[in-house]
């Protein structure tokens, strides 16, 4: 059974958190790919610095052991080493900062006209989603609540504390704009494999733009302490092929909200 479980875990898609996970989830958007790449780039410098500092440390401990060198040399300054240890760290910081800022600003700016706008509104303790591009006249927007499925209602294979009753259905390979806000206290709309974590602040509308590159089901959780049931406010985004999206929205979601 354990072997079966282990096998299942290794083949399960990585768009939700896994037990003992150390790295990031697989990227589903260019932003997340950028974040993972930046992490790897910075880690390269991190390892270099770590090895260098450890080497200096061990060397100092070894050579200036009290038995080895009872009276250390009384050197108080050295111009060369002081110049070097000022310039090199600043260069390293620059090498880290440049790609970091490039990524930060590219994430912030909405460059492309989004094809679809979805509003995610945080509540204590569920998310409400509004699809507002679909009204023909003065009718109400397509709105639905997304509650967590409680543990006793879970079916085999569903993830505890992550599954919701109504998923956010989005088309894959389409520029999406998500407007995040809150109705009561601050929440945070986060989907790790999309590289998105956006605070939902009451009275403020935050916009994020994403482009989901592959179809799949992406799991996230509320990421701002929002009260007792903060842990039970998951987010599930389901990216479907573009050709199926219209029918998914019109057939599945609309009857659930009682609108035709």
């Amino acid at each position, binding site marked *: 059974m354990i072997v079966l479980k282990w096998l299942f875990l290794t083949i399960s898609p990585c768009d939700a958190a896994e037990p003992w996970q150390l790295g990031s989830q697989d990227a589903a958007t260019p932003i997340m790919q950028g974040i993972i790449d930046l992490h790897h780039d910075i880690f390269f410098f991190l390892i270099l610095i770590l090895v260098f500092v450890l080497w200096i440390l061990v060397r100092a401990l070894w050579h200036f052991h009290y038995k080895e060198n009872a009276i250390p040399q009384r050197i108080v300054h050295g111009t060369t080493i002081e110049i070097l240890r000022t310039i090199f760290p600043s260069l390293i910081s620059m090498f880290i900062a440049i790609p970091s800022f490039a990524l930060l600003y590219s994430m*912030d*700016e*909405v460059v492309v*006209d*989004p*094809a*679809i*706008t979805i*509003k995610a*509104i945080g509540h204590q303790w569920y998310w409400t989603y*509004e699809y*507002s*591009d*679909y*009204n*023909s006249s003065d009718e*109400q*927007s397509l*709105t639905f609540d997304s509650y967590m499925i409680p543990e006793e209602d879970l079916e085999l294979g569903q993830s505890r504390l992550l599954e919701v009753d109504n998923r956010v259905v989005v*088309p894959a*390979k*389409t*520029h999406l*704009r998500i*407007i995040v*806000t809150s*109705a009561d206290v601050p929440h945070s709309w986060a989907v790790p494999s999309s590289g998105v974590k*956006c605070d939902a602040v009451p*009275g*403020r*509308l*935050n*916009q*994020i733009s994403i*482009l989901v590159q592959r179809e799949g089901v992406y799991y996230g959780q509320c990421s701002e302490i929002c009260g007792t049931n903060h842990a039970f406010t998951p987010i599930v985004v389901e990216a479907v092929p*573009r*050709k199926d*999206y*219209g*029918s998914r*929205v*019109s057939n599945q979601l609309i009857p659930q909200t009682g609108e035709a």
Partner: protein
Amino acid sequence: MSSAQMDPHDKMRSRDLSKVAKGQQAPRPAHSPGTVSPPPQNETTFRAKRGEDGGGETDSVRDDLFLVTNETRHCFNRYMQYHRCLEGRDTNDCNSLRDYVRTMCPETLVEKWEEQRKSGTLPSSV
């Protein structure tokens, strides 16, 4: 596999320049950037189907004033624009503005502003 039919992985493979020069290996094909096609036009749910804005590719609610994360003013601006339009011109012309408001603003916010507008307490004049 014929030469015209290219193995998809072949695009990615590195080239041995000397082999390419001798004609033993095909050169790397020109890179064509990926495309993102517009949403389908034939769905009844899409705004394009309404025939209001000529089936444009996007909902074009992007405003050059509001390119960053904070869109709070964007929503309010659109709302005020819509009502300014309603007061000034024929209602039919304002449909796209109404759609922008609907796209940008949460329903509860618009409802609140509608109430404020009716009671004359909206913190801005139309």
